[in-house]
């Protein structure tokens, strides 16, 4: 954290109007700094920067905080440090060539990104992946959800001061990455799926590996919970912290576990099933208070539900082809499509406009992290500085996806 106002060489002479011209406050027009009758020392208000280089911001996120002592009066996020122009790149690549790029948005849940993109283009081409491919997709996507949640738990707990869960979750996440590596050769940016199905058939012993993992991991989840769920410090740091009401969550377009923790029982896997999700039994966990603790319990339960889905999928995986018949040169007919999936972070959507050529005319990515991050301000107003860290963690953002 840099504290620009406090390192000012002449703080006593600094009036609020001087403060307004300083660099860090030029973004703060809406925070009403104008109090001409007060000097800086009277006001007790500080404007400080958190980030962009700060370990608890999970990437390069800069949050400008307006503080009264330890109390947060308002925040403003400055984003875009990782902007690569993914949507512009898409317009200059063919549908197939763009496929690996989507892995690099939410890079801890690359499989989900790929699933959403492939399904969107398939819809536009009016083809459908064969059942076996759909099952493979579900297994890998749910494994990826698990990996994403484990990474979230480890880093979130670390931010709040509990170091041990990080080692536990990374140890167990490794097993998932090993399955990915054996399946497609990559651990993070997997590029696991192709438009029309999957490129690779499952490797020899894939089912065995997955079932082994399913037996291995439930006691580990209990282990994480033993460390945290009833831990007094954890409760103090998460209960009633970063509360977002049901109405606010809906108005702010928040999705995923954050929305569910506020009591909205909505999951795209159930509401508008895609891939093979309509074949499986699973529950949608929800919270009651919309606080950081509820979001924690929701995600913990989601991990268990993911395991349930994976087990059903592995046991019932059908035989058959893994690729639909896809034309070598993909030219979707002129038209538009919006397709979205339940990514680990929330609703991940692709809006694709085709002009009938081999390259998409426009691809818009609806990023869950970007939209969820907007809720930060509502969630931390009136809270303490330390809670900002907890709330950034609980939102589970990936800046690669926020900035695209």
């Amino acid at each position: 954290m840099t504290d620009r106002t406090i390192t000012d060489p002449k703080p006593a002479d600094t009036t609020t109007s001087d403060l307004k011209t300083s660099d860090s406050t030029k973004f703060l027009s809406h925070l009403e700094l104008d109090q001409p009758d007060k000097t800086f020392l009277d006001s007790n208000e500080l404007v400080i920067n958190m980030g962009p280089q700060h370990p608890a911001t999970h990437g390069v996120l800069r949050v400008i905080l307006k503080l009264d002592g330890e109390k947060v009066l308002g925040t403003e996020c400055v984003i875009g440090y990782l902007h690569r122009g993914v949507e512009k790149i898409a317009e200059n690549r063919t549908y197939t060539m763009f496929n690996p790029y989507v892995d690099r948005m939410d890079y801890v849940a690359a499989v989900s990104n790929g699933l959403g993109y492939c399904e969107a283009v398939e819809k536009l081409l009016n083809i459908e992946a064969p059942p076996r491919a759909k099952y493979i997709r579900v297994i890998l996507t749910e494994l990826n959800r698990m990996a994403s949640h484990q990474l979230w738990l480890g880093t979130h707990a670390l931010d709040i001061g509990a170091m041990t869960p990080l080692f536990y979750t990374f140890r167990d996440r490794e097993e998932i990455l090993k399955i990915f590596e054996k399946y497609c050769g990559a651990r993070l940016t997997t590029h696991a799926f192709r438009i029309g199905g999957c490129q690779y058939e499952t490797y020899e012993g894939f089912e065995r590996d997955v079932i082994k993992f399913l037996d291995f991991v439930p006691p580990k989840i209990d282990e994480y919970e033993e460390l945290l769920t009833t831990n007094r410090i954890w409760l103090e740091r998460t209960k009633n912290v970063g509360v977002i009401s049901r109405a606010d969550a809906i108005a702010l377009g928040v999705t995923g576990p954050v929305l569910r923790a506020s009591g909205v029982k909505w999951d795209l896997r159930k509401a508008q099933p895609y891939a093979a999700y309509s074949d499986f039994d699973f529950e949608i966990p929800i919270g009651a208070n919309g606080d950081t603790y509820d979001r924690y319990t929701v995600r913990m339960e989601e991990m268990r539900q993911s395991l349930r889905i994976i087990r059903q999928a592995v046991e019932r995986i059908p035989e058959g082809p893994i690729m639909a018949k896809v034309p070598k040169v993909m030219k979707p007919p002129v038209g538009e499509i919006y397709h979205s999936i339940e990514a680990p972070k929330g609703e991940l959507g692709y809006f694709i406009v085709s002009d009938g050529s081999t390259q998409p005319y426009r691809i818009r990515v609806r990023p869950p992290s970007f939209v969820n991050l907007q809720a930060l301000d509502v969630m931390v107003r009136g809270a303490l500085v330390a809670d900002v860290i907890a709330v950034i963690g609980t939102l589970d953002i990936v800046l690669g996806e926020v900035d695209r």
Partner: protein
Amino acid sequence: MPEEIKSSTPPGGESKPAAGHAPAAPAKPAGATAVPWESAMVAKLKGQYGSGIRESSTYLGQNYIVVEPSIVAELLQILRDREQFDYCVDITAVHYPDREKQFDLVWILYSFPRNERIRVKTLIADGESVRSAVSVWATANWLEREVFDMFGIRFDGHPDLKRILLPDGWKGHPLRKDYGIIQQDQEWVKANLGIESGQ
């Protein structure tokens, strides 16, 4: 697919219908063309706005309506209040430089009670603005800022309309079709990064 072509004709007239799809998986003719979409809601809106609703269609099972820019703000309010579209999924735009009205502005809405999606589309010219939807859905704030950043479309009444992903002083709007893929604001790069080019 005549309806669809009318609303989104690409530049350069390259809109040949895709060929070579014959061997593709079982064709679903029902979804392959845009067909008029009739429902109680659409009838009600048409009764209210008449020709303000220019088109209501279904393409590949997805419903969309194309409306006049002058009624869009009011319509969005009605869709949320009366028709329960309480969740604004996304706001985005598409640029067609060869058209007189260069931009398609698209709102993707979802209704939790109805479990239904709808796209609202309006065509606007370069420099034309529409009323901001921030008072309807708070989420529109950042989404509209992104549209402004990427396309230069202004939203009247937005509380804080400024760039969001690109730096404040940047010139140009990258998702316009006349903005090259390796183009950048050289002046900004020189002044702020101290290098000749970021490429």
